[in-house]
Each structure stands twice: as C-alpha cells, then as structure tokens.
C-alpha cells in the first residue's frame, strides 16, 4: 500500500468517525423528537460515505483492480434512510409527540 493511500484512508476514517460522533451528540443534545430525527440521518449520509470511500481505497490498493461493492452499501442506505425517517415522523405525528416550544407551525391532522 502506498503512503498516499494510507494517509487518504486515515483522513477519511477520521472524518467519517467525526461526523458519526457529531450525529450521536446531536441525538443527545437536540431538544425534541423531530429535531433528533435530523442528527442520525445526517451522520449516516456523510459519515458512512467517508468510511465507505476509505474502504474502497483500502481494498483497491490491497487487491488488484478497483472494488466497487462497498458503494452499494451507501446506495442502499441512501434509498432506505429517507423511508425510515419518514415512517418515524409519521408515527410520531400519529401518536402526537410533543414538539419543542419554539417550533414554528405544527403537524397536520388529516
């Protein structure tokens, strides 16, 4: 493995790990259920993306040729994350989870 690849992998891992950590902090710090939905869905998009890229670089530099199967993890995550966020939000609105006081507007009742 070349020196450049090692630095790139380390940087991407740190970056991805940092974003996942911030997502976890957001889950703990944000005031209500709906704002907490934002923390984890964001961490997955950028954090997992960066970790996935480091994995692509690692396996491409260890084995011969470029290995793209990790990219599929991110593609599937991008397809499923919005659906799960939507279902969580819908369920929360259905059972009437309280919103934080300074929220503008409110859920519908249809």
């Amino acid at each position, binding site marked *: 493995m070349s020196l450049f690849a090692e630095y790139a992998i380390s940087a991407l891992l740190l970056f991805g790990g940092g*974003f996942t950590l*911030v*997502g976890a*902090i*957001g889950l703990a*710090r*944000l*005031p*209500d259920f*709906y*704002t907490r*939905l*934002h*923390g984890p*869905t*964001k961490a997955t*998009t*950028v954090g997992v*993306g960066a970790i996935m890229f480091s994995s692509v670089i690692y396996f491409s530099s260890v084995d011969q040729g470029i290995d*793209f*199967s990790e*990219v*599929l993890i991110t593609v599937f995550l*991008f*397809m499923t*994350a*919005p*659906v799960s*966020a*939507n279902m969580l*939000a*819908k369920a929360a*609105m259905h059972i009437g989870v309280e*919103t*934080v006081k*300074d*929220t*503008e*507007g*409110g*859920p*519908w009742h*249809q």
Partner: protein
Amino acid sequence: MFDRLSFPQPWLSWVLFLTWQILSDGVSGGSVVLGLILAWLIPQLTHGFWPERPGFVKPWRMPAYILRVLKDIVVASFSVAWLILSPRSPRPAFISYPLKLEHPLAISILASTISLTPGTVSADISDDNKTLLIHALDATSDQEVIDAIHNSYEKPLMEMFQ
C-alpha cells in the same frame, strides 16, 4: 405468451443486472447468466406492485441531479454539524410545501432528496398528493426553504418527468 418472456420495466432490469454484477466477485459468465435471470424474474414478480409504469422522459439528466444532491449533502452536513455543536438552540419549523410535481415517482424522489439533505426531513404527504409536510431543523423563514427546494430540486425533476 411472449409477455412472460419480456422485460416489462427495462430500467429496473438494468439496475438489477448491474447491481448483481457489482455484488458478485468480478464479471464472469455465471454472474451474467444469473444477473439476466434476476433482471427478468424480479420485475415479473413485482409487476403487480407498480400501478403505472414509471415514465422517465429525460433519464440522462439523472447523473447531474445526483451529483448536485451529493454536493448539497456534504455542504449542508457541515452546517448541521456546526448547529449541533454550537450553544444556541435551533429554530425548528413544520413547513407545508406546495408540490408542483404530479408523477408519484417524481414526488417520492423529491421527498427522499429532502430527507437526505441535512436540515430537512419530509414527514408526510397530503391525501391529494399536493402538499408535502417538511420538518426543518433550523429555518429562518418558511418561504426561504420552499424557494431553495423548488429551485434546486423540484425544477430539475419537473424537467426530467414532464
């Protein structure tokens, strides 16, 4: 009789075929044969779940759209990360977004894009498919968020589907 042997959704078949090639260890004779079988079988089995065939009018615009969304995800992630770490509390808001798109697939792509880009989650859609309820993490004004989504995501999708 020949209906059974055809590919009712060519796009879905292509995606399944390519996904199988990436999943299997290198492209070989076996993976191509199995990929073709899956690309034929899965659309046949799931045919009943698609009420109408998704009509892609200008599919070549899709890569540019995906690149723009990826760029926005990275840029907006930093602002959300900053917001989480900063001491001030966010100003969350529920926003009713008036949809101009009509195609169900286009609406679901837009809703997924809104959920993926940091700071906004699409929470619900009205029964008449005309309004999308969005929860924004930190919104200074409703109109600003609506304009941003309309200009950067809904307009390209309208050009793609109509």
